[in-house]
């Protein structure tokens, strides 16, 4: 009992100490990460990347001359609960801006809850066309990942017959709708299109259809475990000899699950890979392992996007001179800043950025091409 009381007391003292610390004029930024749920795998790398960004921003003098302090909430939960968690950070803990790495359903709930009263940066890969007051986006949209990449692969690999396979929801469908145009422009054709429910864990019949279609390229918009299962079986059936694969959400963890044996001619298109060899990316990766150890959760495009989001928030706030949404919205267009991904520009509230194409053959991403300053065609009209 004594021990319990002592622990309780010391935690009270600690809380008070932390409380007084935060009374100093730090600006609090709410960071919304998936600690639980289907995207929980990305929670740790997202948190770590956010912490690195805060360190960097504070070293550069903070935002508008004030140091920043991060407050986290788990948004790997249903949208209504996630909105509650964000509200607690906003009204309860005094967060003055938000950076979120979570799914689109949560984003829509947050847009409704924030109602343009607080700046909000959304960071992961997503389907595009989300526009609201105070909403800024760093994540890659389908046009950015595909427009430069499809003609490049058509040329490099000599492929023209594309098979499109994805999970049955809006991101794959929106991606494929755009892909069809890029494939036609590159002189190719679509020989099959298929959407699979999330509940299906085996892809044998889809693989047979791909084989019979004579496809020489497959655009994969399956996500997570489904993508792993599909790609493992794809190579098991020897289809990697018949067709290349291009994924727009195959990051380092997914590739690890697919395995070196099954990743022959598997391409991924993204704004970030841990193996990007630019100076900025290399020093970011070095800082990451220095701060969190060499066995820290692997860097990947989703986790790293939290760093991008905070850097955008800092650049935009410093340009606008305040965290007021109207001022930020007015200053948003044309904001430029540099990150591990490269040189970025805010265009139509979306981040025009460098897109990297990496080959996963051998089980590790090897960047084979990069395309500078690719704008999104699914951006906002301002």
């Amino acid at each position, binding site marked *: 009992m004594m021990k319990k009381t002592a622990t309780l007391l010391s935690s009270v003292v600690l809380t008070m100490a932390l409380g007084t610390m935060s009374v100093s004029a730090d600006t609090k930024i709410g960071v919304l990460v998936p600690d639980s749920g289907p995207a929980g795998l990305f929670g740790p790398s997202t948190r770590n990347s956010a912490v690195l960004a805060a360190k960097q921003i504070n070293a550069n003098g903070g935002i508008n001359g004030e140091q920043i302090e991060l407050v986290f909430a788990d948004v790997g939960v249903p949208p209504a609960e996630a909105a509650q968690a964000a509200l607690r950070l906003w009204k309860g803990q005094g967060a003055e801006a938000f950076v979120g790495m979570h799914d689109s359903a949560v984003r829509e709930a947050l847009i409704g809850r924030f109602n343009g009263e607080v700046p909000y940066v959304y960071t992961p890969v997503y389907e595009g066309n989300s526009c609201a007051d105070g909403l800024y986006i760093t994540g890659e949209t389908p046009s950015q990942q595909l427009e430069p990449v499809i003609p490049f692969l058509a040329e490099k690999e000599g492929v023209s017959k594309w098979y499109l396979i994805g999970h049955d929801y809006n991101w794959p469908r929106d991606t494929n709708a755009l892909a069809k145009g890029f494939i036609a422009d590159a002189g190719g054709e679509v020989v099959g299109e298929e959407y699979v429910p999330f509940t*299906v*864990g085996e892809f044998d019949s889809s693989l*047979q259809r791909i084989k019979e279609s004579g496809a020489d390229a497959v655009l994969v918009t399956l996500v997570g*475990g489904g993508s792993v*299962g599909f790609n493992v079986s794809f190579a098991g059936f020897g289809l990697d000899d018949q067709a290349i694969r291009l994924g727009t959400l195959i990051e380092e963890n997914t590739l690890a699950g697919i*395995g070196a044996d099954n990743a022959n001619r598997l391409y991924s298109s993204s704004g970030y890979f841990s193996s990007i060899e630019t100076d900025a990316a290399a020093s970011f990766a070095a800082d990451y392992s220095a701060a969190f150890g060499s066995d820290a959760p692997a860097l990947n495009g989703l986790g790293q996007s939290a760093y991008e989001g905070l850097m955008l928030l800092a650049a935009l706030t410093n340009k606008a001179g305040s965290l007021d949404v109207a001022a930020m919205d007015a200053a948003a267009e044309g904001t430029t800043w540099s990150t591990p991904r490269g040189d970025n520009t805010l265009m139509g509230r979306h981040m025009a950025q460098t897109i990297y194409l990496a080959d996963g053959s051998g089980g590790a991403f090897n960047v084979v091409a990069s395309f500078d300053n690719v704008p999104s065609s699914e951006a906002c009209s301002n």
Partner: protein
Amino acid sequence: MSSVLLLNLAWQISTLALVALGLAIVFGKLRIMNMAHGEFVMIGAYAPVITSMLGLPGWLQLPVCLVTVGPVAFVLERTIIRHLYGRMFDSLLATWGIAILLREIVELIFGRGYQSVSPPIAGTVCVFGADYPAYRIAVIIGILLGFIGLYWWNTRSKTGTRIKAMVGNPNLAEAIGINTARLSAGAFVFGCCTAGLAGLILAPTVRIEPMMGLDYLIRSFFALVVGGLGSLEGLGIGSGIIAGTQTFLGAVASQTYGYLAVLTLSILFLWLKPNGVRSSSR
């Protein structure tokens, strides 16, 4: 019907029968609703991950699988499960808790990320004019032989009858000389080990992560609902109907229709024929 479709049917039905076997024993014979069944499949699938992490030779995968799954199952049976014989709903809740516990333990050790495993036999072979993964062909043949052996043993052994006596009336069973503690622990551990073995066998062909067990649990229950509890024939029929429907409709229509049909079938069976196609207890 193309030969690839026939081979896909054989693969899906045989692997589902293997995955569901352990559940059929534990649920069908011991009357324990083992919600942690899929987690034993998952632990088995980590055996090749363990051997490759420790740099052990490939032939140790099977021993490692049994050494990880067996003791876990034994300890759980002796500490928790044995108090729950004859209390089906309580067993459901308890094993659901165990399932969460096992997932968290595996996550603590290996992390949440995906693992990958190379198949022991690589490449494809030409069967009936179709290129099919050689490993899958070997697995289909192995499972078929295994089930023939099990059927042969089951028709001659009295173990099934003893288990039935034990579950029906434990006191009477002990009075006539059945060692119920040994029998129940043995049956539970055997059932869990077949699940682990299924995980080991499936590992090179599926995703491996702490949450993977859930998929196998649900499909196994569907197979048992349709086939009926308590007999190997029922298990075969149930697996055939569930995996067959999904694979066939998935091939000729789409995966969505395949899954819809499986759900519909399961509901219809629960409603109209709750004992399944075969429910004799042999």
